[in-house]
């Protein structure tokens, strides 16, 4: 079996006295899409934030258990969180471009981590904007305000921004939930393209979306991992009653 790109063992999260996640053990194979589904408040987003330690921003949050990046324990190897976050990129629910130009947005991470000449920078920016299929739309607007783009364009822009720093894993937190159907479709086809190069973890509350794009699907319920299987199997023959209820739309 190949080494998982990312793996959690007994991951738990408490916020104050509330248990948000308990004992989640999941492995994410490289170059694949894993969808995490579950009803609102089941801990999907919290789980994602545990993977790149954005839980750090929550004052009362305490995270325990192991997160393994390429088989290396993040805590034990004392990997600095900024470096962890560079290798495990994240795209948020609402597009969050920085105030500033399209170019500066994509170049943000590059300017942080690497000393590039102006030419190399331009090249790299063009490359990632191309990857997300935005180049033809923004090639003349690189110096425009990023906030002037449509929401769908903004979301692809922030994906390009995340890709620019060459992550190994990309976390997507309901990346299409704020977008219209056509933009959603583009994001989904982009995810399908990206999985040839990256490992993607997609949190979504849209069961159909998970079925369309994910190779594997995990069902979280009440902070616990109830079921994890290849998407095909999970959606056709769910093992648990709760999973079946959820995917058939009986709650959620």
């Amino acid at each position, binding site marked *: 079996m190949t080494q998982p790109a990312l793996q959690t063992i007994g991951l738990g999260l408490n916020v104050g006295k509330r248990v948000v996640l308990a004992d989640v053990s999941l492995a994410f194979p490289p170059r694949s899409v894993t969808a995490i589904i579950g009803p609102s408040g089941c801990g999907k987003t919290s789980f994602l934030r545990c993977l*790149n330690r*954005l839980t750090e*921003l929550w004052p009362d949050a305490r995270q325990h258990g192991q997160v393994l990046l390429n088989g290396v324990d993040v805590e034990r190897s004392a990997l600095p969180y*900024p*470096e*962890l*976050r*560079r*290798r495990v*990129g*994240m795209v*948020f629910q*609402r597009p*969050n*471009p*920085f*105030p*500033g130009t399209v170019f500066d947005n994509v170049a*943000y*991470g590059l300017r*942080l*981590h690497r000393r590039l000449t102006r030419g190399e920078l331009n090249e790299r920016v063009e490359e990632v904007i191309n990857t997300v299929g935005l180049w033809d739309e923004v090639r003349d607007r690189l110096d425009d*305000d990023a*906030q002037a783009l449509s929401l769908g364009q903004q979301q692809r822009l*922030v994906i390009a*921004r*995340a890709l620019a*720093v060459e992550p190994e894993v990309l976390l997507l937190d309901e990346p299409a939930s704020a977008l219209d159907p056509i933009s959603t479709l583009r994001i989904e086809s982009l995810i399908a393209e990206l999985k040839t190069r990256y490992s993607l973890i997609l949190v979504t509350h849209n069961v159909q979306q998970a079925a369309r794009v994910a190779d594997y699907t995990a069902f979280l319920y009440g902070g616990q991992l109830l079921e994890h299987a290849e998407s095909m199997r999970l959606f056709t023959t769910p093992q648990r009653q709760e999973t079946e209820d959820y995917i058939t739309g009986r709650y959620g």
Partner: protein
Amino acid sequence: MILRGLERLAGSALILLLGAFALIFVAIVYQGIAALIPPPLVVLSLDDGEAVSGLLLRETDTNLELLLEIRAAKPEWRSINRQRIIASERPSQACILNASDGRMRLQTHCVGSTSEWSISYPNSGGTAALARWWQAAKDFLIAPVRPDGQGGIGSALVSTMVLVLLMTLLVVPFGIGVALYLAEYAGDTGLTRAIRLTVANLAAVPPVVFGLFGLGLLVHVFGSQIDQWLFSERLPSPTFATGGLLWASVVLALLTLPVVVVACEQGFRRVPHRLREASLALGATHTETVLRVLLPAARPALLTALILAVARASAEVAPLLLVGAVRYAAQLPVSSEPPFVHLERPFMHLGYRVLDLATSSAGGHYALQQAFACALVLLLLVLGLNGTAIIARLRLRARYRDLG
């Protein structure tokens, strides 16, 4: 019912107050502009063809109140006149001319001799009037200041600008630093609450207390130490152990610190959380996020803080009287020789100039008008300093419009 009545009362009081402010503003502008328009020119001709020209201050049936110019006086009077001119620019000592059978007589206490004069009003319109206006404006703005505090306000204007700029240089980095610490690094502990309370309370301290603080601690303690260490060869005459530009700007900086800290902290807190997350998620450290996302996004708020600080500082006179503002400074605090800005020098100040002119017993109506003109210049200065910041803020706001 009572509450409703109170509300209405407060409402009308507010409107009255606003009206009063508007009136004061209009008065300052009107009086200031009036003071800048010179009085008409008259020429007094002596029987033998000699002439003296002057500005007509007040005219009654029998008297003319004049400001005399020196240029055309008789050669043998020149020495006398030169002295008298200084005096005669004060209306109380202005020349009084008596009209008797169509001839004017210059009173002796003014020129020192009694002679017969005739009066004419040349060039009361057209380009000559423009030229006289130009001359009066030059006299008001750039004529050298004299030891009795009279003369042009140029020195005071430049000094005030330098003072405010220096204050800005001090308070902005420090204020932003404190605000950043409070908003980003400190968390919500007893200590930070205490700091916040202290800063807020500083805003309620009367300005003159800041002046006293500056005099007691900065001038007498720090200043004396600096003099002993660095300027001992000049002792016992003080260098920094007396009021000067540096201490005055430090006092102003402390005075405006609360405003700056509160405005900046609000600005930092208003930067949306998702921008912070976006930066961190790209592998930026906290410091990088602060420098590259938080500070740029908070720029409009920082400019607001700057505007408030400049407006507040330009208006202050009381504390400056204690730490370096003087009626007459022989030298500007800036010069073309190194070190260019002379931090130890006492300086003239527009606000103080207004105070001085308005309360001087010798000045009378003329000095009061000059005070209004000074006040107008002060207002324009604040407007000019702030205008730049306001324009910059508007442009930034347009860019950050979606942040709110």
